[in-house]
């Protein structure tokens, strides 16, 4: 029998032990391959070429994924070898040469890796088709993305994993050289020490978490400098990481010890067993818990933010480009050309059409207004009311001659109390207007400075005598979310001079949707991967533990604990192990998301609650799945 045969026999004879390792390898390969194939997809390549952020996002994500996949495989590999030390020791005891054993382990790992690579690429091909379909759906385009097997993706995956597999195989080869025989036999049996914690580290842990939350949540200073951002959020990040670690390695232990103090409760039923086991294991698990909590926090935050962007896109587009089409009047010939173009689109009949005269003036406000106003755009109330009717938003207004109402500049957060009762002195020094209110809701596509003031018709006519108004024409059509063809033509005709955004709603909406969809997709994908991986890591840990504590549960059964009670304590402990890092992750991400939403809520539309809660719920649901699976398997091992 050759060594190769022996290695093959090893795998066959002990398949269930190998299965877990094999599945994690396949899993890693599948996700990596799927991501890489998407990356090489033509449509995505286009957006990568077009946008620097997208390019960066994909680069960073694939690097992160690569790192993660490597760590995950190394982790499963060490889990796998730890469970096999005894077996290896036995070979050595039976007289096999170290070199022979090493070679055998090398072949074995290599063989499995190659098999995993093949299986992973096959499943990955299928899965990337599925993910392409999801992406198409998210982007809202129909059959624009072609699906094909990408040779580059296969090549890259093979290259990356060949390196990882060779590294793990060498690890396997070295296993027998790294340990003394006696150590191989005591693989799992290290002295279980009761954790000791100092009050100092407990207090410090809590303090650091509070400080980091405070730093993240406090409002921005008057002047937001780069130095401030680096210092403030840098410190916040560091104290969050250290605080989280101390939380698991000290705070939780202190809490459990506190719980133990109440003997009447601690000495009741199986509380004793569950609590003491948790207490014994938590210090060894602290690092994993920290990593999982932080990873979950990052994932939930990014996914929540990305989903908010996607979710808020329609509202955002509507705010940026209120009408289906808008343009500045450039003479009858030009205007007619546009109008007949829009009329020609029979599938999207015009529902409203408004002419908006705008006068740009300069003036002084009687209060400090941080928005940089070089020019204010005056709109007559009559035209504004027509806009309100056309868009069916807001209410019809009436103003007396010296009254004015401001429209909130987009992407800002002023409120009406700032304006009420204040005045505007126009630069001609002849006119004064008093603000009676500030409204939300814009009339024209975004163009900086975005400061519109609604004035009475009489006043507007008077001003218009001195300054010639610019005339804008705006159209609202039915089904504006599908006006691809007409929008394209209008964009060409109007060009980029009139506004800083597209003159047609559709294009703004569609581009935003595609961009957001891609971001959401990437974060969703990474989130799913992290989630699956953290879930699996806890699963592995619990299974190792189940094998180690099996005898304890046997003893308990012998001294009269029934199966149901054993099951209960297993459930309780597993819930703790899953729930604790997840809870910390969710609390962290709530804080981070609160910050993010303050920062960008106006960029992405105000409603961030629904998407964020959805993201968290998705996380929790998948974790519950892992929890149920873990309890089931744990119970099968330890509670026969």
């Amino acid at each position, binding site marked *: 029998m050759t060594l190769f045969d022996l290695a093959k026999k090893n795998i066959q004879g002990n398949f269930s032990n190998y299965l877990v390792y094999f599945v994690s390898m396949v899993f890693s390969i599948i996700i990596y391959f799927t991501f890489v194939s998407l990356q090489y997809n033509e449509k995505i390549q286009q957006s990568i070429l077009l946008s620097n952020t997208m390019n960066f996002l994909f680069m960073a994500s694939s690097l992160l994924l690569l790192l993660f996949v490597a760590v995950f495989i190394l982790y499963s590999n060490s889990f796998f070898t730890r469970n096999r030390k005894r077996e290896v020791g036995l070979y050595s005891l039976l007289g096999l040469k170290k070199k022979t054993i090493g070679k055998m382990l090398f072949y074995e790992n290599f063989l499995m890796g190659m098999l995993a690579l093949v299986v992973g690429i096959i499943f990955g091909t299928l899965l990337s088709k599925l993910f392409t379909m999801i992406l198409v759906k998210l982007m809202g385009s129909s059959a624009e993305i072609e699906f094909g097997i990408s040779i580059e993706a296969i090549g890259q995956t093979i290259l990356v994993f060949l390196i990882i597999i060779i590294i793990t195989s060498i690890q396997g080869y070295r296993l027998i050289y790294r340990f003394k025989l006696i150590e191989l036999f005591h693989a799992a049996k290290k002295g279980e020490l009761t954790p000791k914690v100092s009050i100092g580290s407990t207090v410090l842990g809590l303090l650091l978490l509070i400080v980091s939350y405070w730093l993240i949540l406090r409002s921005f200073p008057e002047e937001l400098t780069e130095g401030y951002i680096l210092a403030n959020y840098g410190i916040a990040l560091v104290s969050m990481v250290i605080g989280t670690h101390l939380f698991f390695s000290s705070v939780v232990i202190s809490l459990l010890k506190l719980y133990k103090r109440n003997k009447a409760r601690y000495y009741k039923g199986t509380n004793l067993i569950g609590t003491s086991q948790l207490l014994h294991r938590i210090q060894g698990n602290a690092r994993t818990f920290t990593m999982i909590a932080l990873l979950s926090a990052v994932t939930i935050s990014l996914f929540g933010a990305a989903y908010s962007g996607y979710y808020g896109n329609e509202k955002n587009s509507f705010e940026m480009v209120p009408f289906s089409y808008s343009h500045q009047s450039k003479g009858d010939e030009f205007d007619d050309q546009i109008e007949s173009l829009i009329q020609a689109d029979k599938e999207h009949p015009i529902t409203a059409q408004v002419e908006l005269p705008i006068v740009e003036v300069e003036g002084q406000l009687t209060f400090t207004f941080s928005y940089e106003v070089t020019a204010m755009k005056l709109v007559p109330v009559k035209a504004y009311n027509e806009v309100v009717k056309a868009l069916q938003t807001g209410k019809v207004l009436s103003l007396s001659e010296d009254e004015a109402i401001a429209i909130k500049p987009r992407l800002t957060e002023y409120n009406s109390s700032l304006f009420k009762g204040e005045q505007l002195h126009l630069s001609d020094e002849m006119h004064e207007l008093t603000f009676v209110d500030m409204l939300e809701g814009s009339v024209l596509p975004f163009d900086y400075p975005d400061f519109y003031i609604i004035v009475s018709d009489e006043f507007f006519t008077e001003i218009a005598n001195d300054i010639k108004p610019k005339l804008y024409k705006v159209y609202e059509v039915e089904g504006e979310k599908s006006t691809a063809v007409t929008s394209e033509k209008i964009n060409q005709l109007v060009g980029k001079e009139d506004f800083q955004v597209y003159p047609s709603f559709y294009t703004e909406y569609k581009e935003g949707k595609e961009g957001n969809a891609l971001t959401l997709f990437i974060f969703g994908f990474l989130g799913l991967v992290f989630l699956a991986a953290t879930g699996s890591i806890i699963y592995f840990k619990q299974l190792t533990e189940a094998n180690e504590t099996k*005898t304890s549960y046997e003893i308990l059964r012998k001294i009269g604990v029934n199966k149901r009670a054993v099951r209960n304590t297993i459930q309780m402990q597993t819930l703790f192990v899953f729930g604790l890092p997840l809870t910390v992750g969710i609390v962290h991400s709530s804080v981070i998301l609160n910050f993010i939403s303050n920062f960008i809520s106006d960029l992405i539309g105000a409603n961030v609650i629904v998407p964020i809660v959805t993201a968290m719920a998705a996380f929790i649901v998948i974790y519950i799945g892992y929890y149920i699976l873990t309890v089931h398997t744990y119970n099968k091992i330890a509670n026969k």
Partner: protein
Amino acid sequence: MKQIVEARKIKKTYGARGNLFTALDEIDLTVQEGEFVGIMGPSGAGKSTLLNVLATIDEPTSGEITIDGFTILNMNEEQLSNFRRDKLGFIFQDYNLLDTLTVKENILLPLALAKIDVIKLEERVEAVAEKFGITAILDKYPYQISGGQKQRTAASRAIVTKPSLLLADEPTGALDSKSATDLLESLKELSEQEQATILMVTHDAYAASYCGRVIFIKDGKLFTELVKGKSSRKEFFQKVLDVLSALGGGTNDII
């Protein structure tokens, strides 16, 4: 006097049809309250199997068992668990202590499981620990104490609920002679002073000489029985040795 154990025609077979192995062959056994009974026999004779069947950890293939008036064979899993918790105490060769609990917590575990009031519970633990001389190590963890101390902890746990029947499978098997003697003295005292009923499997004639009665099994069948009666421990020890050599093989391969 009250009968604690009454077992009739206990049979235990292993394996599938065609390849049946009979580990226990129609064994009858009666134990009275306060008796300290030893079970001896060559390796593989079925001693542990018998003890496990009586301990309700294992199920006999056929036969009837009554312990402290309860017929245990018709009980369901939960009833059996409660029965073990309330009526039985166990000591095993490899101690079977929980590594994550202190000595004290290990001892009080059965009481905690039975949801005994804390004050009463602490009292019981104190009393039992004193009896076995382990008061000083109550706050230590199993990995911090010696084998003898571990076994005394296990014995304390076994009797802390005042069980109707104490079952011990080679409790001295892993102990040095001094620790073994200490433990045996304690068990003997327990049966004499507190009327504890004890059933102890052992392969060691010295350990068996502490019992009031010793039954011998061979190939799953009852071989003979020795009663100490008025004889001294030394005389009884000699008698046990005699039976053992009659059992065949001599003491050397009885492991």
